[in-house]
């Protein structure tokens, strides 16, 4: 950042100074004066193509490293689900606690936000953390950050989303881990634990009739699915992440697990974004359970966790 600014300031100053100096120094003295006809110099041209190119590549590399890091969250993240809708933000903490236009996170933890939109494109932007990510309907986007200092920080919607775009914002509260834990347990009125909600949904929607835990059902067991590699019918593998689980709920036929028939109905339009989050949370809670030897979609090479 400093490097780019320095380079830019240097060039801006150099050019301005050159222009101003030439402007006065070579001011026309006689009305009929003609300048010296210099037509160019290829060495000079080469120099001012190559040097900026090298500097530009340096800037690119720095930016690329930061970006790749930003797009790939570390493993041990605290996951918070965030939903944008015209014109408010809803967040759901891992224990199911819900907030509106507020987001509480502990200091010193890697926090990952999983972003979904219910209508148009929004963008979750926390200037103080230097992070933002578009919230695109139909996609899950993720972003992560690691708060380093307790305090309250603005967050904004920075993708224009209609009438009240400007007021679609709120505060991120960064707390000491102990305060955060106290806050989580203290204000329990927010909502049910998503894992519990998810488990209920899992039973209500008859998911459990096929996805039997011991792998004897018509569908693969979900134990240990989250985060593992899943072997698909076409021979490829896919990671059982949020996006995959979401897709499998909404479009079951998109990726069929090897050895199973495409018999699952789609739940498109039958679940809200929050219910999908709950089901994902439930699936995640099965991560540590024993994976059956048969009847799991997990690719053998990876084995169980």
């Amino acid at each position, binding site marked *: 950042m400093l490097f780019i600014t320095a380079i830019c300031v240097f060039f801006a100053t150099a050019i301005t100074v050159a222009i101003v100096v030439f402007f006065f120094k070579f001011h026309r003295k006689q009305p009929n004066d003609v300048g010296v006809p210099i037509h160019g110099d290829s060495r000079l041209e080469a120099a001012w193509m190559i040097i900026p190119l090298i500097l530009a590549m340096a800037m690119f590399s720095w930016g690329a490293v930061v970006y790749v890091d930003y*797009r*790939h*969250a*570390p*493993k041990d*993240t605290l996951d918070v689900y965030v939903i944008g809708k015209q014109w408010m933000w809803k967040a759901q903490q891992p224990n199911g606690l819900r907030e509106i236009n507020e987001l509480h996170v502990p200091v010193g933890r890697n926090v*990952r936000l999983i972003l979904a939109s*219910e209508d148009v494109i929004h963008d979750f932007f926390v200037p103080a953390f230097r992070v933002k990510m578009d919230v695109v*309907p*139909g*996609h*899950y*986007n*993720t972003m992560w950050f690691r708060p380093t200092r307790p305090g309250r920080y603005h967050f904004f919607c920075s993708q224009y989303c209609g009438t009240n775009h400007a007021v679609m914002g709120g505060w991120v509260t960064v707390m000491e881990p102990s305060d955060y834990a106290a806050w989580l347990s203290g204000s329990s009125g927010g909502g049910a634990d998503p894992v519990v909600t998810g488990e209920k949904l899992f039973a209500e929607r008859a998911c459990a009739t096929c996805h039997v835990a011991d792998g004897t059902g018509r569908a693969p067991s979900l134990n240990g699915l989250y*985060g593992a*590699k899943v072997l698909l019918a076409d021979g490829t593998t*896919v*990671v059982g*992440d*949020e*996006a*995959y689980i*979401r*897709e499998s709920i*909404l*479009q079951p036929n*998109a990726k069929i697990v090897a050895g199973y028939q495409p018999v699952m109905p789609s739940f*498109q*339009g*039958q*679940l*809200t*974004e929050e219910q*999908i989050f709950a089901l994902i949370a439930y699936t995640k809670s099965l991560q540590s359970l024993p994976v059956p030897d048969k009847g799991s979609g997990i690719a053998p090479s990876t084995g169980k966790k």
Partner: protein
Amino acid sequence: MSEHIVSPKVYFTIFAALMVGTGITVWAAFQNFGKFNIVIALGVATIKATLVVLYFMHARYSPHRTQLVIVCAVFWLAIMLGLTLADYDTRPHDMQPGEGRLVQPTPAHFLSV
């Protein structure tokens, strides 16, 4: 630059080739070549289009300037299709937290609510 007159014989030959091409596409569409169905269909279509451009549209006998214009059209079309598809096609290989594998779903979307 004198004008090059293409003889009707060439035209009829090309026409015959185009008919054969159409026949091949239709026939191939009913065979199962797996992934290659689309390749064959578009490959034959490209050959047919090239024949039309070269002979019916006289591109083969046109000045280099015209040929350059055609190349530009194809090149820019390739940029638009290529770079956009490159975005979509690399999403599945994108890296995942800790795993080195992807997160984004393909353009599969569907919104609930």
